[in-house]
């Protein structure tokens, strides 16, 4: 894995659930001690949800595509970009099911999108040249 611009490394994984194991150590290593632990854990949550969403729903079952992760720490921000060649999907505007009023009524699941938006309110999405780009900027504490 060659170092990329900004001194951080990119990670390219197969868009399948089995590949998710690699994103946790990757983010820790790419952060290189520059990101405070609490912020880093929040970034882990948002990243896990975003990548899991693509791996689980972005590709046909017999045709996993690719997901590329990038981290840049600059200008007071830690910015994650998740690029994938799956079906077009905007996690920043997709409808979120309202929370049920009781345990009896709740259907477990569907909380990942809400977590991405709560942990990273400035998330943006773009579809370009057949690829999805989800950008998750996290302000660095001063």
């Amino acid at each position, binding site marked *: 894995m060659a170092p990329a611009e900004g001194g951080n490394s990119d990670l390219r994984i197969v868009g399948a659930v089995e590949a998710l194991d690699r994103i946790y150590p990757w983010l820790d290593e790419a952060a290189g001690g520059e990101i405070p632990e609490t912020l880093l854990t929040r970034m882990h*949550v948002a990243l896990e949800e975003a990548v899991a969403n693509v791996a689980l729903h972005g590709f046909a079952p017999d045709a996993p595509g690719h997901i590329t992760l990038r981290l840049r720490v600059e200008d007071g921000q830690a910015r994650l970009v998740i690029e994938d060649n799956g079906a077009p999907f905007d996690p920043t505007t997709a409808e979120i099911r309202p929370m049920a009023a009781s345990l*009896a009524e*709740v259907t477990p699941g569907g*909380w990942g999108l809400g977590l991405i938006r709560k*942990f990273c309110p400035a998330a943006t999405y773009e579809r370009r040249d057949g690829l999805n780009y989800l950008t998750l900027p996290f302000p660095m504490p001063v």
Partner: protein
Amino acid sequence: MSITIHELDGGVTRVVLAGRIDIKGAQEIDTPLSVIGGSRRALVIDLAEVEFLASIGLRSLVQCAKVVQLKGGKVVLLSPRPVVAEVIQFSGIDELIPIHDDADEAIAAVSPAR
């Protein structure tokens, strides 16, 4: 991911989860939690040693709590770390499964009335 079961006095079960509840971790606890949920009526799920919780893990916790409640039982969560608590609160799950930071209070909250 590890899961340990402690049977307490008064018919209360304390389930101690430890590790990362991501997709892989959730797969590891899903079956044990289903079995526990299916056979207990007063459950304290201790999250103090859980380092990380993803939405897939919330699903396992809620499914277990649903089963227990269906039988007229109760489930509470105990002592999640700050970021784990944020995941639970941001999802609104704390409205469905109460969070306690004190073990005695948690046990009292689920204990069957005498």
